[in-house]
């Protein structure tokens, strides 16, 4: 057919239909008149004409359908009809959309995080050829720069290799428009060429950029380029500062490229050698070795591209032979902090087409468990909805029967009921998408460690969209099919004669089973959530040994100047003086917080040449730090102005360290020897001047850690590259923070200051527990809501099916209370079975979260009691509403249907 006539038809269809109706009307009238002319009455003639004409509706419908794109048009009218029906039942629609939305949302949120971490292909050339190279048998992927250089120069197994610093990833990015925290990496010159990633603007980093003394240049992520510079092309050559060091921009990476770690988002790429130029790492005790050349700084990840046609196992076989040979040319590693030398070892290659993710490796079990729970919850949500729709379809039996009798085909009705499910699914999915977006952020937050937040590129691609679409479709089919086929399987006469029917008992058994499963699942989850919340409470109730209220911490990044490290200490003192003089500041101190990873070795000489060794966590502080933290000095004194770089080295021990080193003896005035472990073999003799109360620097659940404090003045200048101030404030923290920033700028405009309340440190320390409690609580409440819907659906279905029975009972003398007791009682029996299973399952489930429970027994009666109580309440409300409706049945009305 010609396009023109087709479009003409499309637009003139209304007229076509009108013509048709008029024509048929004319036909009938002519027939009637003719029959009357033969002597029939008008009434008989009308009947006869109709009879001979056939099914008027069907014929008109058939005639019209000639012009239609029939499925599409009836589809639209079905959608309109579905929307109208749902608008008439807003309660039902809300429950359906919300429960579906939560189910779909949770499923997609969890899946998208798993997808991003573990399933999405890296946006690089032929990602399946990429392998990561781990230190064989060490469970670590860190390598030193020395190892990198010899490996790069002498390997012939791969077509290309690259390295990047995975360890130090957070930077302060600053330009004339201000500063922000970004993730980034120092990368080798062959980073981009190995990955096969080219710049969208300018150029990527090259080997010539990664040379000692080369101009310091960097490549930005597309996102940073857009956010900070609005994709302007004149960023090329622009100077920016990273941690205070100057870099000039030479290019912009492609839009989807954020590095090779799937749980990270790198925004800036700088050459490894730039670290040597800037000596970016703080050093302890005046070690002036740039950390790039520290053989124990295992901060590099190696990534290699397989040669064409070489498999991972072939590459591994090659590595086993080659790498020990190559590493033999390196000097042996010096002694580590644990006292033994670590061999260079060999390398193992692992495929990394989907990127690397430590987060995924650490959370695989939890994520898969969550995924399974979400899937079960979604299936339950669908089953519940199917049930509700079935109960509604039962009410619509006469409507459906009437339409069947009027000539609608069964398929037509099924399609219509399916459209209703589809409309619900789409509405649920839209809600779900919003929930998923939010949920994936929450998951990302929950998987993060504080101070080292995980940032994933959670943007959607075609595969994720396809997953979401198929989930939605599967839901529509899952909860839509049964009611659609069930409701249209109607024997016309019986359906039109009786409104109320009795349900099949087998059916009711399945539904009770559904309720038992849902209730059990909710109770088990609620119990776990309760335990996690109680753990969090117990942790927060622990005394951390300091009073974080009213204290600000200010992280200071001093633009390290390798020429004059002493300058840093002077700036620190100047800042401290400036802060102390501010109004609203009651006390202030500065220093370097305890290193949480490296222990220093302390040695105490006992009588008769015996030695006692122990490790301690080392921090530096100025005077007044104990007053600011409100940590008591148990004996001895605080640091003061007499402790200088030239005076006797002194220290304040935590109570725990004092106990370990000196037992019950008062250690003030005694000495010990200290070795910083970084391998120069020099010992310092240090005198104890005080003992302070224990404080928690990691988690409140930890046993007290041995802490060693030394005065800032004695840490040798350059150790303070990044320092911390603590300021006790009377009044508003945020206003004081602003004043601090202003004061810092007057001392040195290059100083970067990051203020936050000290209480964040405490709350960060329970981050994992809070995240788990939150996720578990949300999830269990969601499943509880599902159980509520389930109980409601089953009870109201039972009540509707048994209207006649209830009528008979009431006619025989049962009163409303009896009916109510009967319906609610039956449901609550089922619920109690579910609760019993749930408590058992909950106790079993505590094994899974045992590691996350602290300060509360797994059989905590409060948590279990709360779960049971809440479930009874939920189920009670859900059963109460339909039962109340049923008990108001007028026996006469109910029986009239007989």
């Amino acid at each position, binding site marked *: 057919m010609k396009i023109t006539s087709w479009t003409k038809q499309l637009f003139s269809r209304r007229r076509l239909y009108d013509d048709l109706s008029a*024509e048929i009307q004319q036909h009938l009238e002519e027939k009637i008149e003719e029959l009357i002319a033969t002597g029939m009455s008008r009434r008989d003639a009308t009947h006869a004409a109709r009879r001979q004409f056939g099914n008027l509706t069907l014929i008109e419908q058939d*005639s019209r359908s*000639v012009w239609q794109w029939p499925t599409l048009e009836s589809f639209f009218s079905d959608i309109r009809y579905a929307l109208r029906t749902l608008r008439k039942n807003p309660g039902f629609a809300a429950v359906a959309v919300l429960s579906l939305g939560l189910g779909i949302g949770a499923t997609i949120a969890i899946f998208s995080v798993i997808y991003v971490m573990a399933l999405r292909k890296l946006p690089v050339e032929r990602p399946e050829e990429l392998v990561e190279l781990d230190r064989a048998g060490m469970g670590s992927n860190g390598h030193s720069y020395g190892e990198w250089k010899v490996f790069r120069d002498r390997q012939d197994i791969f077509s290309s290799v690259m390295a990047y610093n995975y360890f130090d990833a957070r930077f302060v990015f600053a330009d004339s428009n201000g500063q922000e925290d970004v993730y980034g990496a120092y990368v080798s010159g062959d980073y981009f060429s190995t990955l096969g990633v080219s710049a969208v603007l300018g150029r990527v980093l090259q080997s010539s950029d990664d040379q000692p003394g080369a101009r310091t240049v960097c490549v930005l992520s597309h996102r940073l380029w857009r956010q900070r510079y609005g994709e302007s092309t004149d960023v090329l050559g622009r100077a920016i500062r990273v941690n205070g060091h100057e870099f000039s921009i030479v290019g912009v990476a492609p839009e989807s490229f954020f590095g090779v770690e799937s749980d990270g988002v790198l925004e800036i790429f700088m050459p490894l050698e730039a670290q040597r130029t800037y000596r970016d790492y703080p050093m302890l005790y005046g070690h002036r070795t740039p950390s790039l050349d520290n053989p124990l700084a295992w901060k590099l990840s190696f990534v290699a591209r397989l040669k064409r046609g070489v498999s991972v196992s072939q590459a591994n076989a090659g590595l086993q032979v080659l790498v020990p040979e190559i590493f033999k040319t390196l000097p042996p590693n010096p002694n580590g902090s644990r006292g033994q030398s670590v061999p260079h070892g060999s390398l193992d290659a692992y495929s990394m087409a989907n990127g690397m993710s430590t987060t995924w490796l650490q959370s695989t079990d939890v994520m898969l468990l969550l995924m399974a729970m979400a899937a079960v919850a979604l299936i339950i949500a669908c089953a519940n909805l199917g049930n509700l729709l079935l109960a509604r379809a039962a009410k619509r039996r006469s409507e459906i029967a009437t339409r069947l009798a009027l000539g609608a085909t069964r398929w037509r009705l099924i399609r219509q009921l399916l459209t209703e499910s589809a409309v619900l699914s789409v509405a649920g999915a839209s809600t779900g998408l919003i929930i998923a977006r939010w949920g994936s952020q929450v998951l990302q937050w929950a998987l993060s460690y504080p101070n080292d937040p995980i940032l994933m590129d959670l943007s959607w691609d075609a595969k994720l969209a396809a997953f979401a679409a198929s989930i939605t479709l599967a839901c529509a089919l899952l909860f839509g099919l049964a009611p659609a086929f069930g409701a249209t399987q109607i024997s016309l006469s019986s359906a039109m004669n009786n409104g109320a029917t009795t349900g099949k008992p087998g059916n009711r058994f399945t539904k009770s089973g559904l309720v038992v499963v849902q209730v059990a699942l909710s109770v088990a989850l609620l119990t776990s959530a309760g335990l996690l919340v109680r753990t969090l409470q117990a942790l927060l109730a622990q005394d951390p040994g300091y009073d974080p209220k009213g204290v600000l911490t200010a992280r200071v990044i001093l633009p390290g100047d390798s020429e004059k490290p002493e300058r840093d200490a002077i700036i620190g003192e100047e800042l401290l003086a400036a802060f102390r003089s501010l109004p609203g500041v009651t006390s202030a101190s500065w220093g370097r917080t305890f290193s949480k990873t490296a222990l220093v070795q302390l040695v105490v000489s006992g009588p008769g040449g015996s030695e006692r060794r122990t490790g301690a966590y080392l921090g530096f502080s100025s005077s007044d730090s104990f007053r600011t933290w409100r940590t008591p000095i148990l004996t001895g004194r605080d640091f003061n102005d007499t402790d200088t770089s030239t005076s006797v080295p002194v220290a304040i021990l935590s109570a725990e360290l004092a106990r370990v080193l000196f037992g019950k003896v008062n250690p003030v005035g005694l000495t010990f020897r200290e070795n910083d472990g970084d391998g120069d073999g020099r010992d310092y003799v240090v005198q104890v001047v005080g003992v302070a109360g224990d404080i928690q620097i990691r988690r409140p659940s930890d046993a007290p850690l041995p802490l060693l404090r030394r005065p800032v003045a004695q840490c040798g200048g350059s150790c303070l590259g990044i320092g911390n101030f603590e300021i006790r404030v009377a009044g508003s923290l945020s206003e004081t923070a602003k004043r601090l920033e202003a004061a810092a700028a007057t001392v040195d405009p290059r100083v970067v200051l990051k203020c936050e309340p000290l209480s964040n440190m405490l709350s960060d320390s329970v981050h994992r527990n809070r995240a788990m409690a939150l996720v578990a609580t949300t999830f269990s409440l969601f499943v509880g809501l599902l159980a509520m819907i389930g109980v409601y659906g089953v009870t109201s279905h039972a009540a509707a099916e048994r209207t006649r029975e209830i009528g008979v009972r009431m006619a025989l003398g049962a009163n409303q209370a009896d009916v109510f007791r009967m319906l609610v009682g039956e449901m609550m029996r089922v619920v109690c079975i579910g609760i019993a299973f749930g408590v058992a399952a909950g106790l079993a489930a505590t094994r899974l979260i045992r590691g996350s429970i602290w300060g509360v027994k797994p059989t905590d009666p409060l948590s279990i009691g709360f779960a049971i109580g809440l479930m009874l309440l939920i189920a009670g409300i859900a059963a109460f509403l339909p039962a109340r409706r049923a008990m108001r049945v007028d026996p006469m009305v109910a029986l009239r249907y007989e």
Partner: protein
Amino acid sequence: MKKPEQRDLFPGALEMMILRTLKRQPLHGYALVQHIKRTSNDLLQIEEGSLYPALQRLLKEDLVKAEWAISATNRRVRIYKLTPAGAKHLQREVSRFEKMLEGITRVLAPGES
């Protein structure tokens, strides 16, 4: 509801009869039905209404065209006319039908084989 035995003799038969009738003279729907019933001596039990879907199909294929007019009995009726394409189509269909009929007759004819 649809009952299968009430359908056309074979697909396209009704359309063919309509086209043949309209070839003789333009008619409106009611007259068309009466004519087909009469000329078939009421042997073909067709529902009067079943004409209309068939007419719509023919309209859509441009084999007939329709316009509103006033009939002899002073009614506003929709008169259907054969188009040239319709005439050609009819010719083709009739010859196809005759071939088919010939085939069927041969098979059904007794004693010859």
